[in-house]
């Protein structure tokens, strides 16, 4: 595969089973285009996903991929990246996957500043289990399991990421194809952990956080005079619950990613036929 891979090269021949109109189509297209635009090839890309609608992404894309278990995609992606610094790693998840069952892993992946791109398909509902509240559902969002709403405020993933020392924090809207692709591209280019929380509406079960809602309420940071290198400004926007910002909220361009700071340069997939040179010294230590 040459380095001038095209978007289409990242597409598998499997037709997505997402509902017609699902936001995940746009989210995935942005990832594929972002990967192609940043010079990656399917042979040198690894995509990890968990469970749920978002988890199917590995099937619909063409790259090395692992479809794991619910909430554990980030540790898998981290393992791939540490072992293979030469491989581009993208982790895709849903809001339940990333902010509920996988919330612990999320915080720690941010802290580690591992150089991967984490795209969360945030539809603010559990889709594949047919419409229960998710951690980003509004507190009064009525569902089959929360008839009076979840009675607790939604998780603010960007605030979590910022407080955990995130070095690239962005939000996106799957329907704004060009803008979404541009944000994902920047995330891939960032040296360190990048989160792109992507509004990815569920047309079947979520009648509140719809395409129309987002179109009416989104504020693009490019039109809001926002400086993504200003952490205070990022904090103010992230904690502003009245608006739905998209764009890069915060980027620490000077951050050093985990592999550069602590990891290995040489990929780990080579193994000698016998014990590595110098192994006998290990025995001597016990004399």
């Amino acid at each position, binding site marked *: 595969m040459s380095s001038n891979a095209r978007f289409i090269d990242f597409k598998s021949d499997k037709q997505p089973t997402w509902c017609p109109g699902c936001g995940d189509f746009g989210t995935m297209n942005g990832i594929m285009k972002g990967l192609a635009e940043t010079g990656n090839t399917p*042979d040198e890309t690894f995509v990890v996903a968990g469970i749920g609608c978002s988890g199917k992404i590995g099937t619909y894309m063409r790259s090395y991929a692992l*479809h794991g278990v619910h909430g554990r995609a980030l540790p898998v992606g981290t*393992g791939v990246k540490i072992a293979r610094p030469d491989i581009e790693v993208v982790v895709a998840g849903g809001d339940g996957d990333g902010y509920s069952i996988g919330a612990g892993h999320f915080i*720690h992946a941010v802290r580690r500043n591992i150089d991967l791109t984490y795209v969360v398909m945030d539809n603010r509902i559990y889709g594949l289990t047919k419409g229960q509240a998710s951690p980003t559902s509004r507190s009064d969002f009525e569902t089959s399991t929360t008839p009076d709403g979840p009675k607790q405020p939604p998780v603010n993933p960007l605030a979590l990421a910022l407080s955990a020392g995130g070095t690239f924090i962005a939000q996106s809207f799957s329907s704004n194809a060009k803008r979404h692709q541009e944000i994902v591209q920047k995330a891939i280019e960032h040296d360190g952990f990048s989160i792109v929380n992507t509004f990815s509406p569920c047309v079947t079960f979520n009648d509140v956080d719809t395409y129309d809602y987002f179109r009416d309420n989104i504020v693009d940071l490019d039109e809001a005079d926002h400086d993504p290198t200003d952490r205070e400004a990022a904090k103010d926007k992230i904690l502003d619950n009245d608006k739905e910002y998209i764009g890069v909220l915060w980027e620490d361009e000077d951050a050093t990613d985990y592999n550069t700071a602590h990891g*290995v340069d040489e990929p780990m997939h080579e*193994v000698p036929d016998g014990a590595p040179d110098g192994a006998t010294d290990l025995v001597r230590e*016990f004399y």
Partner: protein
Amino acid sequence: MQDDLNWAIGGEAGDGIDSTGKIFAQALSRAGRHVFTSKDFASRIRGGYTAYKIRTAVDRVQSVVDRLDILIALTERTVDENMDELHDGSVIIYDGERTEFSDFEVPDGMVGLDVPLKSLAEDAGGAIMRNIVALGAVCEVADFPIENLDESLQKKFGGKGEKIVENNKEAARLGEQYVAENYETDFDFELETTDEDYVLLNADEAIGMGAIAAGCKFYAGYPITPATDVMTYLTGRIEQFGGHVVQAEDELAAINLALGAARGGARAMTATSGPGIDLMAETFGLVATSETPLVIANIMRSGPSTGMPTKQEQGDLNMMLYGGHGEIPRFVLTPTTVSECFHKTVEAFNLAEKYQMPVYISADLSMAVTEQTFKPDEFDMDAVENDRGKVVDESEISKWQDEQDRFKAHAVTADGVSPRAFPGTEGGVHMSTGLEHDELGRRTEDVDERVEQVDKRNQKVATAEEREDFDYREFGNADSDNLVISWGSNEGAMVEALDFLAEEDVDVRFISVPYVFPRPDLTDEVEAAENVVVVECNSTGQFADLIEHDTLTRVERVNKYNGVRYKADELAAEIKEVVA
């Protein structure tokens, strides 16, 4: 003169018990003596009774026995805790100047050596060295050349500067001198030295060393007693071989990190203990279904739940065999000695990659907290062979592609083993998943494909049984009517128990099994014996169940589950009761 010596230092956690014990154990080992250590400790950082015990002899020692000859008692409780093992002639070294010992009376028949450990340590440069003073006293009592301590002190304190090393050497000599000057020194002990070279290490260290030997470059784990030493060992060492250790946020992350690294093509492992195995069970199924090679070390402790974290048990056998929902092919290796932990770890990596499966390698607390001497050639790095199985590169990839050039990562083959392509391999792009999948790795609910893939995964076990040597080790009299079988760490105690049994004219054939799944078929051996006894550290006899299942024969069970390992003499008595 007595050469087989049982020694202990005991006090409160935080008293430097462990490091003092280790210094003495290393000195003995360097003096060409065999050493077997054990530890009594509680799950707390400071306070509470804790002890480091050493059995040492010129001949090989592989177990603890019910006897204590020399005891350094830093607290009076230390004497009480060990009363069962102390005997007439036992020497107790204590510091009578401590308030703790103001009312202390040396038990009848024993020899009490009141040594002002703290004052002498202060004379040498600081009260902190009181344990070293006691070690010097031991050298005098046991007729062990004190020079042998010097190198251990150098190794332990060299990093803190020569002055500290010299002070410690001085402290030891003051202890030796005090005993020589104040007591009759015709003790019954004489620790000979020899020219033999030995190494001294525990199971966790042997597993860590085996991992590096096998080319493992990625380790992720979460601290848990008694598995943490694997991570401690690898940290700072694996980096020298191009590897990396991650302390994960939890066990779920640890196994998923290792899974990721393995998918990247690295030899990867994690280690934990029972409670961590529970948490990893979720991903264990994914590892098996996605056919990812992964090594998981389970260093068992007393369960269930958090149980007794600092106590011995072999209670996780069923968990390793059956843990996880659905049907999961796996290998379960149960090395029976510390040195075998090294070899079986190398084997675990080879099995994992040759058959693309998760492999459990188990040890237990009694091996993990036991430093034991071995001849260095038992860890022969030149004999290590690494086999990566069916890894394919660009040149072979087309053989494994379908008509649309898609890589068949889960191709159905006669031996059940599919090709493996690492990321970066041109033409090897594929997805893996915990969902049932077709040959390409794509989700399927097709009834035929489901059966094909299940059969394929099971076939790998059948293939391994044909190709590999899942054998047992044998001791004692092969023609005996009495057959004792054990798995894992009981081997040392049982081998020594054979000597005790022989003294009482009880003839035994002993089979030690280092593989639980797949495992050797012992039907012929069981049928040939009149009495069959399965020994294990759990209450129900999990391994005995397997033997009965395999051989369709009832067996006797000898079980211990009070948290303490078998002692050789105790085990001999229990065996005798069953077979005689």
